[in-house]
């Protein structure tokens, strides 16, 4: 009997058991708190959930409602504008700052830290600070503008300006993060390339377009992918909106992810919110697929 037992527990079987035990907690956790909600997110859209936890199958009713809901359409529009402005904004500011902080100038460590500092503070604090600073007439920003002769405006009160204000604040918050990402990518470019180019008499601009940009492709891909996904569904898309503008004025800053939250937790339309969330998931998946296809699987062959 002893013999049989010892033969069963071969080295590889012991290793497999150990491995399963090691990955068990995370797998269970991910299954329960990520995978199952993911599946539920897709199926919950076909139900109507009332305030007492009762479920009623309603087929495509939620999806029909979506198509007829002007506020949902508005939030989609706002989200599209937001993404189209934020992704290039973050790319340019991240790359710009990354290049800027590579200089060997005095106190560069301090400047680098200052650019990164906004990211460290929470979005709630960020929202509160800017909310005060952007106040009509007496806010810090308007007073400075008036000091230099420009007209102050109702940045958070004018539906035409509010999304712009939110975008500026968002870029201010996130640019330090992307600066670090680009910095890391820039540091991977061998110095010899630049030296060789300088010997050949290439201009800074030429070095930038012929060496820097091409060799930054993996980093650029990462930045565009991550910034796009987080523009649609990241925490800054919710936290900042909720505290700073609450979707207003006149729903001009109502991003899709915010609208979903509102429908679920303010109006108790859980099924409807889930239906909209599943649309967002499908769109995100689609965007990722497109991005991967456009760049041929995100693999870059560097000469």
């Amino acid at each position, binding site marked *: 009997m002893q013999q049989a037992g010892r033969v069963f527990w071969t080295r*590889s079987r*012991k*290793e*497999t058991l*150990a*491995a*399963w035990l*090691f*990955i068990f*907690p*995370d*797998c269970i*956790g991910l299954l329960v*708190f*990520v995978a*199952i*909600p*993911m599946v539920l*997110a897709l199926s*919950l859209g076909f139900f109507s959930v009332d305030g007492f*936890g009762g479920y009623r199958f309603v087929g495509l009713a939620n999806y029909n409602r979506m198509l007829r809901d002007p506020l949902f359409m508005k939030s989609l529009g706002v989200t599209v504008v937001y993404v189209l402005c934020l992704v290039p904004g973050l790319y340019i500011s991240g790359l710009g700052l990354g290049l800027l902080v590579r*200089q060997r*100038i005095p*106190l560069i460590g301090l*400047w680098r*830290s*200052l*650019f*990164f*500092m*906004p990211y*460290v*503070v*929470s979005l709630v*604090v960020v929202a*509160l*600070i800017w909310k*005060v*600073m952007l106040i009509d007439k*007496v*806010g*810090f920003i308007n007073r400075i503008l008036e000091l230099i002769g420009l007209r102050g405006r109702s940045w958070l009160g004018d539906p035409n300006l509010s999304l712009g204000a939110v975008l500026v604040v968002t870029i*201010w918050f996130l640019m330090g993060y992307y600066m*670090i*990402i680009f910095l890391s990518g820039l540091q991977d470019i061998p110095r010899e390339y630049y030296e060789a180019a300088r010997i050949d008499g290439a201009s800074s601009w030429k070095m930038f377009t012929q060496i820097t940009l091409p060799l930054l492709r993996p980093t650029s891909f*990462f930045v565009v992918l991550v910034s796009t996904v987080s523009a649609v*569904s*990241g*925490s800054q898309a919710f*936290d900042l909106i*909720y505290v700073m503008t609450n979707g207003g004025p006149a729903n001009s800053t109502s991003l899709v*992810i915010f609208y*979903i939250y509102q429908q*679920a*937790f303010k109006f108790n339309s859980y099924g409807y919110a*889930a239906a909209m*969330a599943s649309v*967002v*998931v499908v769109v995100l*998946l689609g965007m990722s697929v497109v991005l991967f296809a456009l760049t041929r699987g995100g693999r870059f062959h560097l000469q």
Partner: protein
Amino acid sequence: MLIFATATFAIVTASPLVWMVSASLKEPGEIFNSGLIPQHPTIDNFRYVFTQLPFVRYMMNTFFVAGTITVVALLFHSMAGFAFARLQFPGRETIFLTIFSTFLVSLQVIIVPLFILVQKMGMVNTYAGLILPVTFNAFGIFLLRQFYLGIPIDLQEAAIIDGASYWAVYWNIMLPLSRPILSALAVFFFLVNWNAFLWPLTITNDQNLWLVQLAIASFQGQYSAAWNYIMAASVVVAVPTLVLFFVFQRQLVESIKTSGIK
């Protein structure tokens, strides 16, 4: 010239944070009237924040929740990372890829079903509900697996030949070796969870369980024009993150840099 531009731009970037501190030290009448330096600096706002609201309690709640999440997540992720990197078992690659695919799923997207699920599990308004649902994330597993892949296999082989169990290899060899990445991730996780807003907002309405971000966001509702109090409360909430930043800047930057290497 570029030096001047860089320095100016950096200072301008940081100025809203400086403004927050200055506003927190001003009397109500002064907030919109004076420049960056308060003319009659006062700490009354801070006194108010700590006496009128159980702010210390909120900070302790947040410290407990963020700390627990950090420790538990790092323990589980390092275990899983070790297994994926260093142990052979059937289905290893498939399972890892499945886990990797959850990257696309952010809290904001699954908030509705997650809430309903956690509610059914009876964890609304509990510390467990604040901690468990947000502890599991593919990010940490991925990074730790990358790290363990880089550790020479001989260390592990030698230990196993000497008869060590896999747990002993993990606990006595791998863990101590991963101190750099663990400290980087610890700072990052703690920061993210100290700053968390959406999940605490969703899962608690019991004021005793409030976390700091929730507290200051609600503060705004109650004291809508009392910006001096709101700024003082914000300073209190922001200080731990800024301290973490100054002390552990290198580790923070490291975790961000390594996450870019996909």
